[in-house]
């Protein structure tokens, strides 16, 4: 009897110990280290659907010394598994839709999609083509639209910054999905 009591006692102690650790972790998280870091370090991944390269050049211009997106912590990573923000230029068509979907699915949550340029937003002048599906919103969920032909680097950086603002909401959604509250 005494042994069982001891076991119960040890169990409750261990459980309370872990509870305490988890609550401190949650407090630290509540203070917002991770949330703040998320805003300070958005790694972008750039995918060119069928852009005419106008928007691509403007997107890469954001990384040049003139605009230097790295001062905001923005790094162009080129690997979907490291990325937080997906920048898409050009319209979606039947050939690249599955590539776009695949890249989107490989990105770990929380993630944000920014559609850059008229083509990515609506399909642009290619909208009526027989193979074009229209804007990329027809393939993957889009969070920020940056219109323009081509979109200016200032507008692109602004779009990324607005995307950063949505990352926290996405993190909340991610947690709910983990608990099985949505889906």
């Amino acid at each position, binding site marked *: 009897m005494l042994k069982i009591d001891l076991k119960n006692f040890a169990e409750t102690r261990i459980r309370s110990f872990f509870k305490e650790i988890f609550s401190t972790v949650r407090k630290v998280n509540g203070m917002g280290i991770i949330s703040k870091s998320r805003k300070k370090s958005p790694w972008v991944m750039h995918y060119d659907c069928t852009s005419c390269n106008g928007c691509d050049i403007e997107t890469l211009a954001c990384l040049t010394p003139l605009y*230097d997106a790295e001062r*905001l912590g923005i790094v*162009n990573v080129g690997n979907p*598994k490291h990325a937080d923000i997906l920048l898409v230029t050009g319209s979606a068509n039947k050939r690249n839709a599955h590539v776009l979907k695949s890249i989107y699915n490989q990105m*770990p949550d929380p993630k944000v999609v920014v559609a850059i340029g008229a083509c990515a937003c609506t399909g642009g002048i290619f909208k009526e083509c027989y193979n074009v599906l229209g804007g990329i919103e027809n393939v993957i969920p889009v969070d920020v639209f940056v219109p323009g032909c081509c979109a200016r680097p200032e507008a692109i950086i602004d779009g990324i910054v607005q995307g950063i603002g949505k990352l926290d909401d996405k993190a909340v959604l991610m947690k709910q999905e983990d608990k099985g509250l949505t889906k």
Partner: protein
Amino acid sequence: MSINNILIAVIAIIVAPLLGGLLTGIDRRITARMQNRFGPPILQPFYDFFKLLGKQGIAVNQTQMVYVLGHLFFAIGAFVMFILQQDLLMLMFILAFSGVSLIIGAMSVRSPYSKIGAQREIMQMMAYEPVLLLMVVGVYKATGSFMISGILEHHQPLIFSLPLVFLSFLYVLTIKLRKSPFDFATSHHGHQELIKGLTTEFSGTQLALLELTDWFDLVLFLGLISLFFARPWWVGIIIALASYFAEIVIDNISARVTWQWMVKITWVVGIGAALVNIVWMYLIP
């Protein structure tokens, strides 16, 4: 192992990543200034680290995390041995275990980028391990002991007896820190021929732990540099920081070379210089 040693080790394990992260941040800032950019804040590596901790965990297979943890813990082990002034030879072996652990982790996935990156990392290890071992041999010849405490008690700084070994060690440091021109295992910029090489399939927490390991490695290697100038200790630290700055300059002014070139030059020049130094010490005692 007294309680004092444990205390020192714990403090070192906490302080080293802070120092390594700060140094990495300063590296990124200086690099940006050299490229005429403004650059990220100094604390940027920590932001990256905590952000990666908050990402969704995607593991490609079940064993991947084990190799990442092995990479981290062997690096911490090597660092603790350095702080407690233990055996230098053993330290090098543990460091090699850390590197091998990462290579196995990168080999355990199916991505060809990761596999090619791992093979290139093997080439890098093949290039720098002999030089590191020769350095240990040189240290033994100079001080008569493999212990780091023996180096600190030695009557003169090691640089006087091992100048060429020090130069080849500096050369190897560029390979170990994966700086350009030897950054082909994980390229600095992820939109090149190997995406991110070795780390392509690591994401979220795993990538954060890899960065943490890099910080430990950085501090350990700067510590090893300062051993060459160990008396007084602040000279060693200044020289270590100066050589880190030199690494940043080399990183920014050089283009990537092929691995054949690296292995050839490292074996001929690096091992050659270290061997000449050691043979010299035998001939002229």
